[in-house]
Structure formats: structure tokens, C-alpha cells
């Protein structure tokens, strides 16, 4: 329902509000601390719990992942694609492990579901690229943090 309120003369010409608004702008401009930083020379420190680019944790050079498929199961964006295989010293391992970062919403559910402490979300947040490549296993195996 539209209610029409009676407004006073000064309110209707706006001049007082404009002066008040400008006063706030000028006060911030001259007297408050700057909130912007000189990125990329300067960087902000993020919390340890920040959820950025994924990696798979490795122990002695072997990925912790056993291709249990819990992360693709839980992933709400359905962007993890794993193909499992067998090799002599590891009963089950991921032959192919891909994360389609363009679809990922960085919810961190994969990290939470993982029983093997394998998939992790690092603090890296610079992910702009020139191509639409997915994050392949060799790229994922790069250790990007200490979680």
C-alpha cells in the first residue's frame, strides 16, 4: 500500500540532506584511515580457515587420496571427477582427479567429507586464468599449504 506522508518545506528542497551527506564524505576523505591496500605489492592476511584453491595432501610423495568418492558425492556443484584404479603398492588410487574450478563454489564440503585428510582448500585466492582448464591431478598434487 502506498502511503503519502506530508513532508516539510526543508525536506522537500533536499538542500539540508545534501549538505549533511557531503559533510560525511569530506570527513571520511580527510580524516579517516584508508581501507584500501596497494595490491598486489601489499596483501591482506587471511584466516587459516579461508577456503581457496584446492590441493591434495601427499605423504612421502604419494597422495593421501584413495579415490573413495566421498568428495564427488558430497560436492553440491558436482565438479569433482575421479576415476579410480589399482596399482601394485596401493590398492585403490585416483588415476584421474579433476576439479572444475569454474563450477566450484568453495564451500569446503569436500575437505570436510574426506576420510583420508587428502583434499584441502588452501589460502590461495588468485585463480584467474586465460583458459578454462580444470584443475588436474598433477596440479592438485602441488602442496599449497600446511593444513
Amino acid at each position, binding site marked *: 500500500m502506498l502511503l503519502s506522508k506530508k513532508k516539510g518545506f526543508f525536506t522537500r528542497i533536499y538542500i539540508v540532506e545534501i549538505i549533511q551527506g557531503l559533510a560525511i564524505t569530506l570527513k571520511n576523505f580527510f580524516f579517516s584511515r584508508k581501507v584500501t591496500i596497494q595490491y598486489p605489492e601489499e596483501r591482506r592476511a587471511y584466516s587459516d580457515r579461508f577456503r581457496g584453491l584446492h590441493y591434495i595432501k601427499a605423504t612421502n610423495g604419494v597422495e593421501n587420496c*584413495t579415490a573413495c568418492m566421498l568428495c564427488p558425492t558430497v560436492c553440491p556443484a558436482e565438479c569433482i571427477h575421479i576415476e579410480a584404479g589399482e596399482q601394485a603398492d596401493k590398492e585403490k588410487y585416483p588415476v584421474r582427479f579433476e576439479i572444475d574450478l569454474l563450477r566450484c563454489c568453495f564451500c569446503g564440503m569436500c575437505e570436510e567429507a574426506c576420510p583420508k585428510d587428502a583434499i584441502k582448500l588452501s589460502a590461495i585466492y588468485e585463480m584467474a586464468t586465460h583458459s578454462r582448464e580444470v584443475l588436474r591431478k598433477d596440479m592438485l598434487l602441488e602442496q599449497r599449504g600446511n593444513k
Partner: protein
Amino acid sequence: MPKCIIDGREAEFSVGENIVDIAKRIGVSIPVFCYHPGLSVVAQCRMCTVEVEKMGKLQTGCSTPATDGMVIHTNSQKVLDARQSTMEFLLVNHPLDCPICDKSGECDLQDYSFEHGSQYSRYTEERRTYVDLDMGPVIQKNMNRCIHCTRCIRFADEIAKLPEMVAMQRGNATEITTADGRPLETDYAGNYSDICPTGSLTLKDFRFHKRAWFLKKTPTICAGCSRGCSIELQTHDDHVYRIIPRENQAVNQYWMCDEGRFMYHAYQEESRLCVPWFDGQELAWQEALQQLRAKMTGALFLVATDLTHEEVDAVSQLAQFYGAQLLAFGSDTDADYDAILRRTNMAANFHGLKRRGLSWYAGQKAELVIIVRAGRTKLPQLGETPWVGMGVFWEKEKTPSCQGILPGLSYLEKNGTVTNFQGTDQALKQAVAVPGMCRSVPEIVMQWMHGGERG
């Protein structure tokens, strides 16, 4: 009828029925490991214990027949404590490697451990481990996961009738293995994986390809022989990953043979013909049928014993349309292959075609033979006679005298009715999408007869 009371609910039963079965019927689930309704009862896992009033000790539900007026409690504190202890005992040596194990998601041990077990293990000794022998091409063994329920041993003895599974040693050192460590020989080895309540015996063919919880399940009928076992096609993204048997007391009880279990691979092969082909080139449907219509003089129609009734109906309409003769082909005998399930006639609808009163092809002469089949029946010996195939064919079957192929559907992709050796009509159900440009036989026939511009 005698009655007993389970958890305060009255249940009728017939004399001799055990408590687990009666409880299941009225919706009370009692966890079991060693009990399988298709095998003899040994009562050795102790998971199914229940409290029966007026009996001092807990009773095993799988081996205790109910009596009139019996009062049974399946979730009293005493029963729950017993289950928790049994679970802990069974898991003492279990590796708990569900992330790797292929049974995960459909594993009784996992489910009951979650439901009745404890989250923590008190066991600090080194766990018992085994070196695993090769069990042949069907089954992969991992004895560390075994809980010694002996279902596999009983299956070998009682169903496969080939006592090839044995328990060696005893006590803590018990190991389930094949006699003399030989590979499995039975034609029914896939069932070991179905009945094993843990991941000790898994299918090599299915292992690691797909997690059980991703699979879409379609109940249908096996088209491998004239028995027509009830099966479940398990698919994901229109690809069949596994076939398991469904319970059907009248036909296959709980089992199926390996041939039936693995024959779906052939229909997913690259070399299956999925594009209409005529006189050496791949064509659109419209053109292929156009060329075929011009050739239809002195034609003879042959329908295979693996077609559904619906498909035979469609082809007989077409034969009538041309005034041509309609004959059946494929083996015309049927008998028990072994005393278990398999039949010698390897086509799903042999008895259906017999019932329809079709006569069999016996070398009758024709200028052109139209062969209609679903991929299971062997092609007839036609010599030099030119032929056109409608249905499922593979690259290697294109003989020099083959003039054209109209690709049709296999049992994975179609609905229809077939008659098994007992005379029962059973329904095939489509589980995956139609591959390539394939079309069902009735669709092809309709376009053939009436034209139409459907590409």
C-alpha cells in the same frame, strides 16, 4: 494359524518359520550376517540374537523356529548390548578400510556397525592379516575383511554344487579359501560377491568403476537363456555398470549365472552397429528404407528366438504387407544345461515363438532374407543369399552378402514381453538410453510401411 508376538506386535506364521523371517514380514528388521534365506542355517555369527520370554538365554533368531504364543523382544537392552558386543567382536580384526573397499555403501557389516556398533575400538593388538590368492577372473579376494560367516562355503556346497570354498585352520587363524588355492570353477561365481556380507569377495569386473550409491537400479529380466532370471540392471549416465539377481522364487530364487551377469558388455562395445547402413555406406533412416523398399521382391522374413512378442508382431505385420513368408530361426531345442539355472537354449523368447506356432527356417530359398534379431541368437547359414539385418549386429557379422543393417535395440534399451521355459510371460524394462541412431523394431517397421519424414 499360530501366532507370536514380536515387539508387542502380533504376527501370524506357518509352522517351522524362523523368527528373522517372521519379523521381516511385519517390518521389524533383525540384523543378520550368516543367515541367508537361500542357504542352510548355521547360526554362527550371533548377530541375530533376540530375547524370548520364558527362555533363559538369548536365542539366535535365524535358527529358532517360532512357536504359538511366543513373546519375542528384538530391542530390549539385553539384545542391544549383545549386538554391540558381537559387532565389536566381529570388528576386532577388521581393517575398517571402507574408503577403499568396493562393498562400501551396500555392505551389511558397515550398516550394522553404524547402527549397532561403537564408534571407538578398544583393540590395541596387531590385527590379523592374510596374503590373498588369486581366485580367478570373476572374484577378487580380500580375506582381511572376512567375518567368517561361511555364506560363501554354503553357496558353493548347496547352490553351485561344487564344494570349492573351504575354511582352513581354526579359531583366530581361520581362513576362507578355495580348495588347494585353485581358481574358482563354478559358472555362478558372481553370486559369491552378492552374498558376501562384507567386502571380502568383490567382483573384478565392477571393482572401482562406480560407487554403489551412484547406481540407478532398473528391475528387468535376463535375456541370456530361456530361463529368464529376474535381474537388476545398475546404471549411471546411461552406462550399465553391473547386473545383480533379484529374488524370484519361481525362476531363479536369489541367483544368476556369470554368462548372464557379464553379457551386457557386448552391447556396449564400440563395434556394435548403431547407424543405418545400406550397400556399403552409412545413411539416414529415410534413405536406407527408401533403398530397401525398392529391393523387396521375393523376400523372406526370419525372426530370431531372442525377440520380444511386440517385435515379432511388428515384423509379422510387415511380412503380411509384402505377402512374404515369416519363419523363426535359432536353436529349436531346449533343456537344462546344468542342474542349477542355465538352459541350453540361449535365447530369451524361444518358448514364446514356439507358442506362437511359427515354423522354423530350414534352408528355404529366397532372393532377399530379412533377419530380425536382438543380438543373442546365432545368425543362420544363408550361403550366398543376400540378407538385410534388423536389430542388433556387430561389425564382424557383416558378411559380403550382407546388404544392409537397420540398427535396433538390445534388452538393455527396450521394453517388451518374453516367455520363459515355464511358459511365464515376463517384462523387459528399458534401463539405458538408445545408443546412436538405433530404433526399436516396431518404429522401424512403421516407417518402412508408411514412409514419413522422420530423418
